[in-house]
């Protein structure tokens, strides 16, 4: 089963929860950091990275001797990645979304596949658990293609049937977040009991609900803010799976980059129980494929 840990906004403790769940998970498990703009899970798990590979997007390159300036490619391109300037056909690699349309449409075979670096995919081991992450190149604007490469690397491990996967998804509710969670069996939404937290939780629920994946909520920093988040969850039929109490010592443990269950032994039963509930939800969803 695949579990995604997501949140409508950043800084709710999504990565902290992912790391603690990894610690509490009973079945064989792999971990994946798809928050490729700001990958942080490795800072908590300290995995041994075995290899990193550059990931690329297929983009066009031009063979000027074959180009007849028919402009079929530049007219098709929706992203201004190809521009015909009369005498010169210009390609702007960073504008390209990698749709391949120009390569397919060119009647002269004047366009050949080339590559743009998206960032890197790294993998290794965090103890018994496999670890996968993507890191977007600074200046690269598109994260979904790199996320697809990280997922493809995990699939190539050949272990996907035997091992569960926890995905640390990017925050927010836009295209990258939906891309990250869309093939999960269960989504764990991490929020905090404040007006900002609640508003962003509502957006996340709206964004993910069309996917038909079961969702549960973890309320982090329970005790600060107010109770409105619990009213919303009960109205929306979302189970509140755990409440992580707020304390200054926990905030400091996080600041020191420590896994919460190690910093605060009292939280061990809470995360064990959370892991059990999410495993149950995920397996149920997998057994009733019509629901997922």
């Amino acid at each position, binding site marked *: 089963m695949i579990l995604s840990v997501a949140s409508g906004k950043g*800084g709710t403790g999504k990565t902290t929860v992912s790391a603690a769940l990894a610690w509490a998970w009973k079945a064989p498990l792999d971990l994946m950091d798809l928050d490729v703009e700001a990958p942080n899970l490795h800072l*908590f798990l300290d995995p041994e990275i075995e290899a990193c590979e550059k990931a690329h997007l297929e983009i066009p390159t031009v063979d000027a001797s074959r180009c007849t300036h028919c402009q079929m490619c530049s007219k098709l391109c929706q992203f201004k990645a190809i521009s015909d300037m009369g005498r010169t056909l210009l390609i702007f690699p960073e504008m390209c979304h990698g749709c391949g349309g120009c390569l397919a449409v060119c009647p002269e075979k004047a366009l050949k596949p080339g590559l743009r670096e998206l960032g890197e995919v790294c993998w290794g081991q965090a103890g018994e658990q496999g670890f996968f992450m993507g890191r977007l190149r600074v200046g690269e604007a598109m994260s979904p293609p790199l996320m697809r490469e990280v997922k493809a690397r995990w699939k190539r491990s050949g272990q996907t049937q035997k091992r569960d996967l926890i995905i640390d998804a990017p925050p927010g509710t*836009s295209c990258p977040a939906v891309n990250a969670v869309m093939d999960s069996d269960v989504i764990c939404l991490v929020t905090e009991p404040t007006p*900002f937290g609640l508003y962003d939780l509502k957006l996340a629920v709206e964004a993910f609900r069309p996917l038909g994946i079961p969702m549960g909520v973890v309320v982090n920093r329970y005790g600060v803010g107010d109770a409105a988040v619990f009213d919303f969850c009960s109205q929306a039929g979302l189970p509140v799976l755990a409440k992580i109490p707020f304390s200054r010592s926990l905030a400091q443990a996080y600041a020191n980059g420590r896994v919460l269950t190690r910093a605060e032994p009292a939280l061990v039963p809470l995360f064990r129980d959370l892991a059990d509930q999410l495993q149950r939800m995920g397996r149920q969803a997998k057994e009733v494929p019509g629901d997922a």
Partner: protein
Amino acid sequence: MREIVILSGKGGTGKTSLMGAFSHLASNFVACDLDVDAPDLHMLLHPVNEATQDFFSGHEAIIDPGRCTGCGLCADSCRFQAVDAAGAVFSVNPLMCEGCKVCVTFCPEGAIAFPERRCGNWHIAATRFGPLVHAQLFPGSENSGKLVALLRQKSREIAGSRDLELILCDGPPGIGCPVISSLSGATLAVLITEPTPSGVHDLKRVAALCRHFKMPAAVIINKSDLNLGVSNEIRSWCLHEGWTLAGEIPYDPAVTQAMVHGQALTEYLPSSAPVRIAVQNAWKRIESMGHDPKAV
């Protein structure tokens, strides 16, 4: 006209709480919420919208089931696995469609329409501090670089027509397209960080982006007393890299209470509160930099 963009790389560093406080402290300005995926500023500023418009960006492919023969060319040509080929006729999953027009071009039946995609709304609003330009993307909508550009353009128009000298932007999280879009043409970036491993990591990434775009930047360490060691590390990193440290804000749970009460922390907290004083001092520093980044 000055344009200050507040960024954090990582979410949850208190960017919007500080933006709310700066909105309270600034004068003669227009506020602009560029965090369009999860815009929170309105919960502190309580805007009353004066004008609302739809936002369109790009296009999306829609297959006409009456004309689709199920030949499968569209599914074969789509690199985003957006064509659902489960039934006798095909359909496009709007969540995965990139709007590249390849399927539209190659469909032999001409069965695929390509209308503009409605992605959200944007608003011009009045608040107790001044005008606010803000927006909301529909959940799951396409990335928001164009909307960021549009909101900044509207903010500039308002600043121009109402003779305001400052545009104060709550920037998007991360370092991707919306952030790049929010930096273009700005005068100063303010980078909010916190003394955590991920806070430092993301600060460095967003600072690298500012350097890439030759953007002057000031750093604020929020919740600085939660880890004095890491705060020290950030301080010396700023010195070494030549970034101005505009302030260090201590941790205080009352900041959350200000949010619960829908107020800027400088409104809610007593004037003697160390957090409030630290935020006021940081704002003074930033304001002087916004005039002439090289002067500090």
